[in-house]
């Protein structure tokens, strides 16, 4: 990295911000660490030569099913197998902790997310999600339409969200303040379009947009939406209100790490339409925990116990007679696993290197574009000042004019309104993934911390005074992105098919990086195994 810190801030937040932080002499930064998920294991992998590794006889382990990758997709697969009575299984995870992009950290004050931090109350068709929430004791019954209701203390408490715009905080995400009649009219038209899609059913009674996407209709009217961008879809309808466009861009950045102009219209509409039970109904409640989706990861690992093996960097997954052989690098040498079946739950760019049939070209490997993300956890010694008339601190606090997404508050759900807390700040790189990684891969913890502090100080002049620690995670290959054409790509559908005894999971197989998708592919792969 040859950029100066100030250039780095300029690159991520724009030149005026860099000017601002250049003028005050560089204040000393609070302490912190750079979390590099899976870095050690990744290095072991890169240094290893695939193919001719010798695994000593006493380093082999035999199991019925081996799962490669301990992110949500892999853990869901193992959990579903375990529920079905398959106890003889192992999960191999490269990182020191399981969870992948849903892992969590903790301070003395509170646990906090390092990536994924919410799920949405499922509709009744989503049986695996309901089974999971049931098992976690998170369900509280059903509403008068028979749709599931989640326990009150898991639904995001008020205030759910607020947005910072021109020096003030406003309730909600859509900027109502100052909206013109034309803005409001466009918002109403947009909502009507969404409602139309919420009520839409194909000949088989399927919805156009569902979570997970596998339950959605493949009617031509639906798949056509994948061939244009969300922005183009809005344009065709004359929806050009800057506030509405901001909302749609924000939605795409938030869930997909893309701008509306690059997002498949199917994915963009799914953000709004898949989480509503019926036309006119409210958005299904958002569910969160202080540690974000780390709470679900903890539930999975609690159930799976020592069958989850961390620090296992899988380098090879190959078919040997009727079995699958898996070679993994651990801090104390290589290790082999023989299993009847394997489930590969790692991102496509890794799968194509480690899964033998993909590596050798026996089947063309398909990968989905992945976007880079930076996440900072900012530890505050006490609460930030609020100005009279501002909306109070919310769970999700959005900065209208920033390329970052703002921050969520780890203590929000517990209900502590005072004292120290941890804020989790998200920055998605919406541009080309490979180019972003080239610029960002060498950035230091201090570079990131400076960006996060500069960004948040705009909305909170006292931020630097309150901030005692800034830890940063950089997810170079953070999440797959539903670019135009990605969702209903026939090659993606083909990539889900098993390769003999090797079954495929990972949220990437939906091109939409959401918990529900990771769960869906994990459960599907497990069901495939159970059917054999």
């Amino acid at each position, binding site marked *: 990295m040859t950029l100066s810190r100030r250039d780095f801030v300029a690159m991520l937040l724009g030149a005026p911000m860099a000017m601002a932080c250049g003028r005050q002499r560089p204040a000393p930064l609070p302490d912190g660490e750079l979390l590099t998920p899976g870095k050690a294991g990744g290095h072991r992998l890169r240094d290893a030569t695939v193919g001719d590794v010798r695994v000593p006889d006493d380093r082999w382990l035999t199991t019925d099913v081996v799962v490669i990758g301990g992110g949500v997709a892999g853990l869901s697969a193992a959990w579903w197998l375990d529920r079905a009575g398959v106890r003889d299984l192992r999960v191999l995870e490269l990182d020191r902790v399981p969870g992948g992009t849903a892992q969590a950290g903790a301070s003395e004050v509170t646990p906090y997310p390092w990536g994924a931090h919410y799920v949405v109350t499922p509709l009744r068709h989503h049986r695996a999600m309901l089974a999971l929430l049931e098992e976690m004791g998170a369900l509280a019954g059903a509403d008068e339409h028979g749709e599931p209701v989640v326990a*009150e*203390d898991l*639904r*995001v*408490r*008020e*205030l*759910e969200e607020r947005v910072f715009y021109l020096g003030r905080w406003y309730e909600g995400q859509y900027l109502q303040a100052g909206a013109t009649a034309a803005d409001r009219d466009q918002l109403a038209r947009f909502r009507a379009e969404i409602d139309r899609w919420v009520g839409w059913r194909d000949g088989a009674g399927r919805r156009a947009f569902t979570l997970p996407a596998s339950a959605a209709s493949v009617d031509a009217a639906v798949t056509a939406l994948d061939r244009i961008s969300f922005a183009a879809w809005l344009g065709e309808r004359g929806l050009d209100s800057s506030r509405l466009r901001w909302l749609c861009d924000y939605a795409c950045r938030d869930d997909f790490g893309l701008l509306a102009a690059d997002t498949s219209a199917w994915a963009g509409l799914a953000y709004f339409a898949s989480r509503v039970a019926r036309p006119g109904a409210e958005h299904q*409640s958002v569910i969160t925990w202080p540690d974000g989706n780390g709470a679900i990861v903890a539930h999975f690992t609690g159930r799976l116990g020592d069958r989850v093996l961390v620090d296992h960097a899988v380098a090879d997954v190959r078919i040997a007679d009727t079995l699958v052989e898996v070679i993994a690098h651990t801090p104390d040498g290589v290790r082999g696993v023989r299993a009847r079946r394997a489930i590969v739950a790692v991102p496509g760019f890794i799968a194509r290197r480690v899964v033998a049939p993909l590596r050798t070209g026996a089947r063309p490997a398909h990968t989905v574009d992945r976007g880079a993300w930076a996440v900072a956890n900012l530890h505050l010694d*006490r609460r930030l000042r609020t100005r009279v008339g501002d909306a*109070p601190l919310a769970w999700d606090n959005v900065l209208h004019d920033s390329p970052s997404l703002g921050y969520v508050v780890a203590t929000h759900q*517990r*209900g*502590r*309104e*005072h*004292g120290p807390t941890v804020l989790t700040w998200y920055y998605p790189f919406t541009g080309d993934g490979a180019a972003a990684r080239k610029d960002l891969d060498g950035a230091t913890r201090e570079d990131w911390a400076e960006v996060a502090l500069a960004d948040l100080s705009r909305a909170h002049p006292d931020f630097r005074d309150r901030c005692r620690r800034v830890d940063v995670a950089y997810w170079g290959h953070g999440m797959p992105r539903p670019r135009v054409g990605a969702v209903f790509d026939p090659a993606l559908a083909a990539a889900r098919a098993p390769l003999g005894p090797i079954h495929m999971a990972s949220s990437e197989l939906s091109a939409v990086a959401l918990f529900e998708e990771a769960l869906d592919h994990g459960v599907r792969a497990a069901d495939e195994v159970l059917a054999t």
Partner: protein
Amino acid sequence: MRPLPATLLYVNVVVVATCGLVYELLAATMGSYLLGDSVLQFSLVIGLYLSAMGVGAWVSRHVGGNLARRFIDVELAVALVGGLSAPILFLAFAEVQRFQVILLGFVFAIGALVGLELPLLMRILQNEVAFKDLVSRVLSLDYAGALLASILFPLVFVPELGLLRTSLVIGLGNALVGLWGTWLLADQIGRVTSLRIRAGAVIAILGVGLLFSTRLTTWSENRLYADEIVYAKTSPYQRIVVTRSPSGFQLFLNGNLQFASADEYRYHEALVHPAMVAATAAGHAPRRVLILGGGDGLAAREVLAHPSVEAVTLVDLDPAMTALARRFPPLAALNRQALSDPRLTVVNDDAMVWLRTSPGNWNVAIVDFPDPNGFGLGKLYTRNFYQLLAARLTPEGAIAVQATSPLFARKSFWCIVRTIRASGFTVAPYHVAVPSFGVWGFVLARRAAFSPPTTAPNVALRFLDGEAMAAMFRFPADMAEVDVEINQLDDQMLVRYYESEWRRWQ
């Protein structure tokens, strides 16, 4: 040497006299505000002040050297001690047990200095003016100054400035006159520079005090409260203000009245005893009682009046509030030292966070939070909160919840009632008239079915007898139930109802 400007020096006499008496009145007022008993306080202060003046006068004969210099020095000392007296007393009374001693110390110091001043001035002027004229003018002006003070103090200073600023502003006036004196007596003083620097320092200190006093209570806050502010503190959680009026004192949190000592007994008797009676009727007299909120200790007073009570836990967010209830003499007297009762344990934590991990088996829970005017308080009125509470009650347990006014905020009141009902309780809403609040509402609830109590408990009460008990549970048409939604963590209807309803009355 120029002749002394005697007339102008007489102005000094008036100023010194006025200021002196203002300090005395300030001390007596603060004493009676904070320590109650105003007859005792005024007598003590006046007596001590006059005798201290005598001591000062007596000491004056030992003062020699450059009299003009001494005179200005004393005047500056009066300005400093007197000017800072009220702010220091204000800060001291919450922290220090020996408030009375500090108060009388100030009175004595100011009295002695003022007592020193007049003889010195007379000695300075003795060669200029015939003795009989001197005595008659100085003394008559001194008494005139006292009259001026006693008129200005209650009519102008206190209403316009408040106690703190009166003290500082008077001190400043005092010091400015002292500075002016260095010109009047320039010939007698000789080298004036060091004196002027001293005067400047005193003025600076008092000026800073005046700025700082704005942080204790702002000018606008003084006007906001109809009555005199006698205590103000911004804790990390809230702004606590105590005011004093002829009928007693009042506690405000973030500007909202929590109680007035004149009629709080109606509120707290109604809050506490129905639940105690209901629990007794359901099983046995309550032994373990939980109080959530209520850091003023007044609900605790009512609870502790029941001899069956063995253990009380009081959970209030703000340590500053519970410390005030324990140490602020008038409040500690009003709650009958409830917070020092060995049966009572104070916990300073968020009630909801605490409840989640707390043990249960409470026979009675008294829930007395400020009104739900934001999501932070609104969460303490949600179904989730009441469910947490329900799980921590014994089978015969009863709860009572303060539920805002069923008259002014009818939807809010019934929203609370319905939320408690939706949490698995049988509810019995009731109300009582509290003059300083208006009609106030509460909810009595048990997990089992029950009928509202019709008898008073067997403890000495001022308001609640059997008939009053039964009457509280009847709702006239203008407060009858309305159709509202319940309050949940992720959808705080109550906060929205409350906001829209109270806006109409403001």
